[in-house]
């Protein structure tokens, strides 16, 4: 791809298929909705051209991008529901960390099943607490989950005395992130399943529709007979449980539980969701967009590392690109 770099040919290539698709009034087409896909392609081509010699296009590197974004993708799929419902969940990163240590500790004492159940229990407890406080007491989710971020991180550090908890159970490690299914990394399967299920549930089930309705106009949803409290509770519970699974994926891939796993993931996940075109004000959401948002962030991270930027420079460029993309996607 991109071998033919002669400008006229390139423009013809991009213009022609759009025209043939026969979209009504291309001028009126709301390109902002597709800015994430355009951005993804542009950034991909940019790196493909300029970082070719650094090995950007190698199969290994591309798989690496997927592998590195898989956990964020899983968290971001659930975050799509939360944001589409006009809420936010800042606790996901530290829930992942807490889940990783609880899993590791339970695993070493009582075995595989207990480890997995322990990790899930973290998600259920934190998610229900978030959901209950938001939907029953009406406390803004921003505050509830900000508090929970601190609580979960603190508990994880406390119960481990800040020490890493190694996981020696091979079955667990294979299942959660270290294994492959044929040539496909297990992590990819986890993120693939979450994207497919997430996309179908959001756009094709009553639950998904009610999430969008609650986020789009809560009063209208309420008057239509939707139990909006239950919906808000459900999305926050879902987000907690999914974050705890993400924590187990960290634990499996890195073969240990540590309170630092997942730290800061809430920001990457929120960025992925917003980049993917989900409105921060609720009411609309796209899981596929979120996938591409997460991939774009992964792509940028990867490209910047290959380009030899150091960590501080990466942060600056990444922040600038995210602001630029959201500004472009913004409605007038």
């Amino acid at each position, binding site marked *: 791809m991109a071998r033919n770099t002669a400008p006229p040919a390139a423009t013809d290539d991009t213009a022609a298929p759009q025209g043939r698709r026969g979209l009504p009034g291309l001028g009126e087409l709301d390109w902002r909705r597709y800015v994430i896909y355009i951005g993804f392609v542009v950034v991909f081509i940019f790196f493909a051209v300029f970082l070719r010699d650094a090995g950007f296009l190698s199969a290994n590197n591309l798989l690496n991008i997927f592998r590195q974004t898989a956990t964020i993708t899983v968290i971001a799929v659930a975050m799509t529901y939360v944001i589409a419902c006009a809420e936010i969940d800042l606790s996901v990163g530290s829930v992942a960390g807490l889940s990783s240590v609880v899993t590791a500790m339970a695993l070493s004492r009582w075995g595989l099943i207990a480890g997995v159940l322990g990790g899930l229990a973290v998600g259920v407890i934190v998610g229900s607490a978030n959901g209950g406080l938001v939907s029953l007491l009406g406390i803004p989710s921003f505050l509830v989950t900000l508090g929970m971020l601190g609580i979960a991180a603190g508990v994880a550090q406390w119960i481990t005395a800040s020490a890493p908890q190694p996981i020696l159970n091979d079955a667990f490690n294979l299942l959660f992130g270290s294994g492959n299914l044929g040539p496909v990394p297990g992590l990819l399967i986890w993120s693939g399943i979450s994207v497919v299920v997430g996309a179908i549930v959001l756009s094709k089930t009553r639950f998904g529709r009610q999430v969008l309705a609650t986020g789009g106009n809560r009063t*209208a949803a309420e008057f239509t007979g939707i139990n909006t409290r239950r919906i808000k509770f459900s999305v926050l519970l879902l987000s907690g449980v999914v974050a705890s699974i993400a924590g187990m994926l960290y634990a499996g891939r890195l073969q240990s539980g540590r309170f630092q796993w997942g730290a800061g993931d809430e920001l990457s996940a929120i960025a992925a969701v917003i980049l993917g075109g989900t409105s921060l004000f609720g009411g609309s959401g796209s899981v596929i967009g979120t996938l591409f948002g997460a991939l774009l962030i992964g792509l940028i991270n990867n490209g910047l590392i290959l380009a030899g930027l150091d960590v501080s420079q990466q942060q600056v460029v990444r922040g600038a690109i995210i602001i630029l993309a959201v500004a472009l996607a913004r409605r007038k």
Partner: protein
Amino acid sequence: MTQTTDAARPDSDLAVQMRRIHKSFDTVPVLTGVDFELRRGEIHALAGGNGAGKSTLMKILQGVYSLDEGEILVEGRPVRFHSIHDAKAAGIGMVFQEFSLVPTLTVAQNIFLAVEPLGPGGLINDREAARRSRETLRRMDVDINPNAVVGNLSTAYWQLTEIAKALAQDARVLIMDEPTASLAKHEADSLFELVERLKAEGIAVIYISHRMDEVYRIADRITILRDGRRLFTKALSEVTPEQIVEGIVGREIEGEAMTWQERSLPPEPEPLLEARNLRSGRRVQGVSFSLRAGEILGLAGLMGSGRTELARCLFGVDQLDGGEILVRGRRVDISSPQEATAARIALVPEDRREQGLVLEHSVRDNLLLPLLTRIKRGPLLSDREGDRLSRSLIERFQVKVANPARPVRLLSGGNQQKVVIAKWLGTEPEVLIMDEPTAGVDIGTKTEILQMIRGLADEGKGVIVISSEYPELLAVSDRVLVLRNGSVAQELSRRDIPDEETLQLAVQGV
């Protein structure tokens, strides 16, 4: 518990009976023994002032509130509603005044919200929803694309979508609350046609409206509530408008407020406000006019004629593409509301809930928002000065609120509107632009607002009134500008407009 509406029993030509309904909130009785009955295929107007209990009564019928005492029969069968679901299942549909659609979903998705048709595997079948929506819209003789996103449609279509939403769920009774509040004349006309068609299908309509002409035009009977009791239910052929108004406000009032009294203007050499060839966007295409101090200028025109947009660019919300604005002969540059305020121009906007008020804030804070510089003591705001100023405004404009610290959303529509007017008049403007100042307020408040407009003009302010209600426009204006397609089609002295029809014809351009 609800029942299905099976074969009608002979004695139930009544769609709904509400008997001896009692309802109190915190021991304050809101409804005391109200009876209400609705026949099949009847259009039944429901009227009453603020606090008369009509919205509470309707919320009971919709299953939003439970009743304390009394009973409800639908098609002759006693029912008990525990939720909106129950009422819907019994065939009660509501078309809300504050629209209750989800703007980010499509028309079809809204119509079937929470009752989506499911395909194999329990997944939503959006295609089937669109097909059935199209059917319902065709039955209403309305041309809307079911796949259009609601947020991109104009408000007139929102309302039709709401009606379709109720009909698609087999509503036999439709409650419409001020359905024409945001519609232009021709849109309202097609709504009336639609209501008539529904009536012919046997659907009963409860029609809540403050507009007499509409009530007489489409309703068969009217029930008037006052202070939580039913005053009377009568056929409209047996009741005069004066009786209705008297029943609502408890005294004869509209007659005087709605009659035009010729006012004499002091001769002044130069106009207070002058607009020369204003252009802005698509809707304002070269508008020129002048306004004298102490004059009330009416702006008439259909929705989309540029009335609202003209007001917006005079107040600096929309940017001018061309033309100039002069205040007392001096050219002013108005490209933001701050500059308009500095030029002593104020706007009471069309949509008070969206544009006029911060609903969650207190009455006091809303009033003080444009006046913060006046209560500044050094760099800080003075609470005592703020209390004094807000209380004086509340008194001057007779806002009915016991405690100014209460959120403004708890006030009635009429009182909210008074807050918006008071807020802007606190800035002591010379030019006051009012866009639909009486939309959705009861007759009592409307009278007060009209008197207020006259009083302001008598004080020497220039007032521009935009209204789709011609009687109101004719009652207060000294001069009327008719806008059509973004420019002034006609300028009429009030003296040259003998009646409402003349103005209607001028607006329609025939």
